[in-house]
């Protein structure tokens, strides 16, 4: 089978970012590898439909997210409680406390947050995207993106506090 330099270049350029995003959503190496592969294969078959090639990274993220949602629907994950926290509920978390946990623990906490809230939160942390760009990528209105990130962040902080209450202190 002849090589496809454009495909290879794209894979080498974006697989790390894509994998990181996917792993933060699934917490599973196997699922994320499958998602990453599937995303690139969809691109390989649909690349001619991309109107603006400069948006390829956003397109890849959106596609991976859609594939992730398909998996979630297929597996019929147990529905998480809707998040309704406000900023008043934000526990105090220090950077030192975050540094003391490992990445896996952080991913476990992310896994406890409903996927609709998890995806924007992960993009908020991992990618230098504006809120509008995150909204476009996930096909969610700007206001919804902001409220979902805020609620997910508060929930994450609450989970971090539960791990080691002694490391957190009152606001």
């Amino acid at each position: 089978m002849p090589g496809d330099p454009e495909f290879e270049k794209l894979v080498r350029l974006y697989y790390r970012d894509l994998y990181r995003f996917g792993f933060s959503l699934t917490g599973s190496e196997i699922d994320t590898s499958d998602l990453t592969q599937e995303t690139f294969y969809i691109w390989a078959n649909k690349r001619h439909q991309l109107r603006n090639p400069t948006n390829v990274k956003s397109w890849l993220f959106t596609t991976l997210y859609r594939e992730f949602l398909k998996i979630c629907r297929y597996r019929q994950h147990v529905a998480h409680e809707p998040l309704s926290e406000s900023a008043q509920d934000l526990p105090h978390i220090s950077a030192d406390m975050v540094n003391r946990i490992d990445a896996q623990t952080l991913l476990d906490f992310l896994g406890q947050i409903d996927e609709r809230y998890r995806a924007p939160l992960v993009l908020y942390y991992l990618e230098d995207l504006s809120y509008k760009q995150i909204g476009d990528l996930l096909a969610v209105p700007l206001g919804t993106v902001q409220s979902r990130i805020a609620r997910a962040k508060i929930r994450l902080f609450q989970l971090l506090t539960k791990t080691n209450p002694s490391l957190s202190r009152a606001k």
Partner: protein
Amino acid sequence: MKRSEAKEKLLLYRELIDDDDLRFEDALAHARRDPELAEWLREQSSCYDAIRSKLSEIEAPADLVEKVIRNRPIPSAATAGRLNALQRWDWTQILKLAAAIIISAAITAVSLKLWQRQTHRVIQGREIIVKGEVLDMACYIAYNWSGLEHAACASDCIRNGLPVGIKAKNGRIYLLTGYDAHVNAELADYAAKIVTIRGKVTARDGFAQIQVEEIRKF
């Protein structure tokens, strides 16, 4: 603005990334005047950086990139054809396709002639005026591609010397030829457009061609 309101807003603020976002402007101004709020904001920023850095530690498996490249799908015939046509630099494939079409047409015509063993009526040299869409014959016959969506590809194909045709309103297709090599260059500008062609028609065994004498854009 109260401190609690400022905190609500600044909960989402990311240094550098959100600096141009006007929604944070008031709250940031408040933080500059309120040392306690400023301290809270500093802690939030440190915490943001710590979580970001923690997530950035995620490493893809070493063999993933090779696995993705090795197992990449072979595009389906339709997709492959479309990709080849869209990848303008892959002219060898398109020329091979055109050659195959011409050879197939020739074989069909000869076979028909031998089978029927009779002389067919030949129309030659009659002047004709045909109005219709300029077609890139290679893509039209192989994939039924025509119309404005295909205009750019058709224009390139015609300009590079692939067979050019016209589809008349009654659905009849004529191959367009010229007295010299410039006819493709002239017709490339009209790819997928409706034009009126005047020329001399020649037909044999069901195939018709027009030797172009005049092109008029409709």
